[in-house]
């Protein structure tokens, strides 16, 4: 490079620097012209209004369903031995009260106004997992016993469920509720009971404390295993994220909170149950067990009782003992009862072990608790005495059913067994040969149990094994059906079915 070139290079350098400088400044200026100052556009009122609109629009969603013929309301004649019967007049009055409250009062008032749940009101609905009080005893009549999901025989309607979940349908009046979740969204669905139309979808998002990504769960538990519950004024749902949320019957979100992500290696699955304006949450995790009562109106904690138990997947059951209601819970190692008003542990028996999934059964003062690889025990609720125990047939996921002196157990390997409630003697067994995760329920003098392949078997509820019908749904199932007014509502893998005569 010569000195002459040095001069030329400097001239080029000058031009280059000026060009680059102007280009940088020009680009920066051009960028500024295309930049909006959104901070200046901030208006808190506008944002709040937008939030409201967005909530209202997004939470109501309607889909087309297969048309169905309206079926006349079946006779609602309560029956059973544990709960006194309710007259038609009482039921009608109670229903009218609830209906009036829903139609006339604004949303906030509806939720804040206490509703007195009664046993008879629950028996006319199906407000929780395994029906009234979570006991698996249904008081509706004229339940169909024969259908075929493949041909559509006795299938009044069938509608898709937007998101998956192993929770079971619950019913209040003319509405059916389900929950579903995937990696991104957690939702509660309300369907019209008469035609299956999706009335609204409630979103369980934007909850303070909710994890940004859902916890790892197993495929057969999922993110939405717990069944929702309702008291006729609100619908309450919990998910594997620990998010618990309340909607009114029209789908407006009333409150939501996160209880802390449950440390649960399969996924939280304990269903909710409600009574006396309280929402009960069994929260047995790897970090310890507890039972909580939340105000149904605002989600505030009424009481919380720690449990000397390990993790469990069972759900609470409500029973009346000497005029007072108590919650029955089972987990490793205790089966225990808690006062619904104070949360105080009333009694407990150390008798259970393992990863407890089945909830307890209860009939005539006897609590029946069972778990696979452990045992089944019959406990006198007053004396805490273990009346009998057996380890022949034990359930893994299915909860036992006790009613009219019989105890029904469904094993995951496909055996349905019937025991005598007082003595523990085995009356009968039936090897269906397929997986049984669903819980047996009794209605209209019959025993209903659907297997994981979607075949529901209907038996006579008696000491003798009498299989009445085997009905194919046409798709896999595993949840426990809901019953109302001569109809059965079954959640299949992808659809919700209404079976009726």
């Amino acid at each position, binding site marked *: *490079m010569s*000195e*002459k070139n*040095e*001069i030329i*290079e*400097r*001239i*080029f*350098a*000058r*031009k*280059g*620097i*000026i*060009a*680059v*400088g102007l280009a*940088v*400044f020009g680009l*920066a*200026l051009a*960028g*500024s012209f295309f*930049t*909006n*100052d*959104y*901070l200046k*556009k*901030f208006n*808190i009122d506008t*944002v709040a209004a*937008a*939030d409201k609109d*967005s909530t209202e629009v*997004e939470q109501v969603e309607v889909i087309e369903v297969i048309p169905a013929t309206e079926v006349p309301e079946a006779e609602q004649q309560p029956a059973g031995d544990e709960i006194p019967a309710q007259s038609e007049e009482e039921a009608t009055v109670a229903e009218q009260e609830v209906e009036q409250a829903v139609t006339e009062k604004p949303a906030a008032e509806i939720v804040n106004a206490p509703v007195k749940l009664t046993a008879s009101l629950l028996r006319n609905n199906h407000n929780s997992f395994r029906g009234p009080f979570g006991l698996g005893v249904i008081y509706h009549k004229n339940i169909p016993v024969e259908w075929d999901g493949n041909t559509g025989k006795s299938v009044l309607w069938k509608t898709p469920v937007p998101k998956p979940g192993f929770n079971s349908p619950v019913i209040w009046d003319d509405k059916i509720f389900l929950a579903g979740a995937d990696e*991104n*969204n957690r939702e509660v669905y309300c369907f019209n009971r008469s035609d299956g139309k999706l009335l609204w979808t409630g*979103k369980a*998002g*934007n*909850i*303070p*404390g*909710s*994890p*940004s*990504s*859902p*916890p*790892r769960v197993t495929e057969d538990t999922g993110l939405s295993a717990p069944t929702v519950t309702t008291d006729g004024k609100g619908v309450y749902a919990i998910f594997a*994220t620990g998010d618990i949320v309340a909607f009114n019957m029209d789908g407006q979100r009333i409150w939501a909170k996160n209880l802390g*992500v449950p*440390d*649960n*290696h399969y996924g939280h699955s304990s269903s909710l149950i409600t009574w006396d304006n309280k929402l009960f949450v069994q929260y047995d995790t790897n970090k310890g067990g507890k039972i909580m009562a939340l105000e149904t109106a605002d989600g505030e904690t009424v009481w919380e009782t720690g449990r000397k138990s390990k993790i469990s997947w069972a759900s609470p059951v409500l029973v009346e003992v000497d005029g007072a209601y108590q919650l029955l819970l089972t987990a490793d190692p205790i089966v225990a009862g808690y006062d619904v008003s104070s949360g105080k542990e009333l009694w407990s028996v150390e008798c259970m072990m393992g990863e407890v999934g089945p909830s307890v059964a209860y009939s005539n003062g006897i609590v029946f608790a069972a778990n696979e690889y452990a045992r089944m025990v019959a406990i006198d609720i007053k004396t805490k005495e273990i009346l009998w125990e057996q380890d022949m047939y034990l359930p893994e996921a299915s909860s036992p059913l006790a009613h009219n002196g019989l105890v029904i157990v469904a094993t995951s390997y496909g055996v349905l067994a019937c025991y005598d409630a007082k003595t523990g003697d085995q009356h009968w067994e039936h090897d269906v040969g397929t997986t049984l995760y669903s819980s047996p329920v009794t209605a209209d003098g019959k025993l209903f149990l659907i297997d994981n392949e979607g075949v529901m078997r209907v038996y006579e509820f008696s000491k003798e094994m009498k299989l009445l019908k085997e009905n194919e749904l046409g798709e896999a199932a595993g949840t426990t059906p809901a019953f109302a007014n001569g109809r059965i509502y079954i959640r299949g893998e992808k659809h919700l079915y209404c079976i009726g005569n």
Partner: protein
Amino acid sequence: MKRKLLYIFLTFIFCITALTSYSQQQRFPKPEFSSGYEQPDVVTPEPRSGGFEYLDVAVLLVVLSLAAWFALRKRSRQGILWLSVFTLVYFGFYRNGCICSVGSFQNITLSFFDAGYSVSISTLLFFLLPLIFALFFGRVFCAGACPLGAIQDLLIVKPLSLPKWLNKTLGLIPYIYLALAVLFAATGTDFIVCRYDPFVGIFRMDAKFHMIVLGISFLLMGMFVARPYCRFLCPYGVLLSWMSRFSKWHLTITPSLCIKCKLCTTSCPFDAIDFPVNEKEIVQSGPGTKKFIVYAMLIPLWIVAGAFVGERSHLYLSRANQNVYLAELLISDPEIKNDPDNIDVQTFLESGKTMETLVEEAEVMRGQFKTGSMIAGGFIGLVIGLTLINTTVFRKRQDYVPHRGNCLSCGRCMDYCPVEK
């Protein structure tokens, strides 16, 4: 030449081994917790515990001293080369490129503007020691103590000589990068020099794909355009260059008198050798004084223009700040609240902070950016003005000498000089 090829071969083997380890690491993903916790991307490795951070300072001090000794006293390119290899292994692959003098000025900057942020003694020393050495011995840090320089230096194959005008023009980029890095650090927004360090991913064998690609691209480019990051990006190099211009001692091409044999003219891969000035030609080229005055008078104009552009640019520059970004996102698209996949938004919603508070914080930050951007713009204008005026100034020079600001003290030119002491 054979020896050089051997060095290049060994460095390639080292890089390939590193990449293989990286790919193997990707085969076994990080553990995920059942609680839903997501491990964030690692920006910096674990801090040194106890006295080990001072061990790093001691190592830096020794390396700088050796580099100065090799460059100025021993005049050994060989020594500087092996020192680079050690630096690459120790500060690069062993210490994962952190702590690093190149990014340390951001820590120092933040400590000036954030009373709650303090820098450790070791960070301060990592920032100061190379500058002090540059003030006395030239850029010996670049020669043998910088892992970023070392990895590039060892991969130079056939360096092309860039025209001076291009060197000068591209030389503006480090100043712009420095101004932006100081702006972002001062506002507590980000340490962009660390975040966009192209080689740190290679050192750590763990980085986002695009950063790995960027790093490899720089290395490939560096085979022909020697040490491109050091010359046309490194903001710390700006500070070192300033110091080095006033260095008490500096590497020289010849140990004695220059005999103008011109053997060294092609020795520098960084185009950092100044040639003798032909005064006669310069006088014939035109009235230099007039140009100087014109460009000197234009400097305030460049500063004002830069400040104006900076002020106009603060809106989008401030969006690099998390609070400003979030506030604008939520205002411009309120529906984003319902997007469960947007972790930033969901984290904000879960924090319980109100929108009003967020907007207030964002407005404060935007105000800081407005002032900072004006200063940064003015600084860039000043640099442009001074660089222009520099092109009009000719210093009397009769020998071939290293450019004190641009010379990286690598010592290559010394081997070309036939003069002996």
